């Protein structure tokens, strides 16, 4: 016996469209398509921004001039959170985000900003529209942080 699930899995439902149309009255009602999940790039970027906030927080006591950098990352995280909530389904589980290196020295902070700028640019390139523009802007912001930390 061929189940409907098996037919869906092989694409035979599409191939047998003509027959399907003829017996449409006998078909069970199709489920509506699942709502689109938020792109993983957004949740990866959010996790990275939260790590960057924590890293800058750890350095802030010794370097209060990093306050603006910290505020920028917090704004990035808020914007990414908002972008994710525009999708009806949550983002898939986080698996691919590489955390920035544990920051302590200025050089480590700078390396973290450069890595974040590269990652956000790559995530932007994988998306389109407002999400791509948001990540492109975040990437540019992190490039400015890296130069500030030179």
């Amino acid at each position, binding site marked *: 016996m061929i189940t409907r699930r098996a037919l869906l899995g092989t694409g035979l439902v599409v191939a047998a469209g003509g027959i399907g149309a003829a017996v449409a009255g006998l078909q069970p009602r199709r489920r509506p398509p699942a709502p689109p999940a938020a792109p993983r790039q957004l949740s990866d970027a959010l996790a990275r921004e939260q790590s960057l906030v924590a890293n800058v927080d750890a350095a802030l006591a010794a370097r209060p001039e990093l306050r*603006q950098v910290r505020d920028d990352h917090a704004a990035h995280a808020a*914007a990414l959170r908002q972008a994710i909530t525009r999708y009806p389904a949550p983002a898939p589980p986080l698996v691919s985000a590489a955390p920035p290196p544990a920051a302590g020295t200025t050089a480590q902070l700078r390396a973290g900003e450069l890595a974040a700028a590269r990652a956000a640019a790559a995530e932007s390139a994988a998306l389109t529209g407002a999400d791509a*523009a948001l990540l492109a802007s975040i990437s540019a912001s992190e490039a400015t942080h890296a*130069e500030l930390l030179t």
Partner: protein
Amino acid sequence: MNAVLDAWQAALAAEHAAIAGYDVLGPRLADASQVTLARDSQQAHRELRDATSARLIAAGQSPVPAAADYPLPFPVTDPAAAQRFAIKLESACAAAWRYLISVADASSRSVRTDAQQALTDSALRAMRWRRLVTPTRATVAFPGIQQ
């Protein structure tokens, strides 16, 4: 595709405006290092203008020419105003390139790569100018949106 071409041309127009703007603000700067920053920034915009024009021609388009005149948003009569004007020029370029990214579809990969680089470069130049004006707030979270 028209939206992409329009945004690409708008980015080129912003580069033209930046080149003209640096002509105005450069002579108002007093500090030698700032004059050098203005010259380097203007040269970078010239190179980007030329590269963007060439790419538009290669895509079968006629690049928009520079305007005959660019009205100033405020009087640029001293170094402080010149620095603020430079931030405005760079922010306008960043906004134009960011907009191109927002309308380009997934197939326009090389256009988007170039736009990301241009957005980042303008953000960096804006930050260098902002360091002179507001040293404790030299960066912005969203280049291309905020000034």
